């Protein structure tokens, strides 16, 4: 594996581990989702260069558009949580009472 491939592969692994082992804030979990998206955007942009297929350059732009939707929805949930519970701490989201 070339060092650059290892770099975005491990970046994706770090951010998914950071999402799994989140601590207090909902927004730091959302930031880890953003870094997962970034670490997928970079290899999707490198793919058309490596394989010299220009039409694949569309895919990272489309991914950016849908990731903007996801970011907006995540931040709206953050605002809703801050409105209801007063903060975005994850231990407040505890409707499951068992």
């Amino acid at each position, binding site marked *: 594996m070339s060092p*650059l491939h290892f770099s975005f592969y491990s970046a994706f692994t770090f951010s998914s581990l950071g999402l799994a082992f989140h601590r207090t804030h909902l927004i730091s979990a959302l930031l880890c989702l953003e870094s997962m998206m*970034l670490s997928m955007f*970079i290899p999707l942009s490198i793919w058309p260069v490596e394989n010299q297929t220009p039409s694949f350059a569309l895919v990272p732009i489309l991914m950016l558009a849908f990731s903007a939707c996801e970011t907006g929805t995540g931040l709206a949930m953050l605002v809703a949580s801050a*409105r209801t519970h007063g903060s975005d701490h994850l231990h407040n989201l505890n409707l499951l009472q068992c």
Partner: protein
Amino acid sequence: MTYFVIFLGICFMLGVLAVASNPSPYYGVVGLVVASVMGCGWLVSLGVSFVSLALFLVYLGGMLVVFVYSVSLAADPYPEAWGDWRVVGYGLGFVLVVWMGVVLGGLVDFWKVGVVTVDGGGVSFARLDFSGVAVFYSCGVGLFLVAGWGLLLALFVVLELVRGLSRGAIRAV
């Protein structure tokens, strides 16, 4: 030049590690900005400057600015930066996991460097990424309309989520 691009790749990884070790969100955004700047520099070194600029404009200029505004909802009385032992512990734990994966997966054959740049072959009249994204408007126009419709729908989703006044999401009752 090779070592500069490898340095950009390493800084990309370190920036994402700075986000993943879950410091206080004020500092996590810094890590994300550093990671996206390094990623854009890496893409420019390959020659695909259009997707790099699209990343800068949409991601840094659009999404991260909104994130930085929303971080104000996550106020900590004592924000933890990367000097705190908990954050450093998480970061070292993630590095250990990836290192174990590399060692056990047998990825030790590490120093093959080499990637084609954007002028490697084909017609050099229109750059690779420009002509690729132009397909979005000519052959992929259905996908363009679907993506635009999805973005409009996301606007209404956000409106419904933050409606408040006893009709919003995440109610405590």
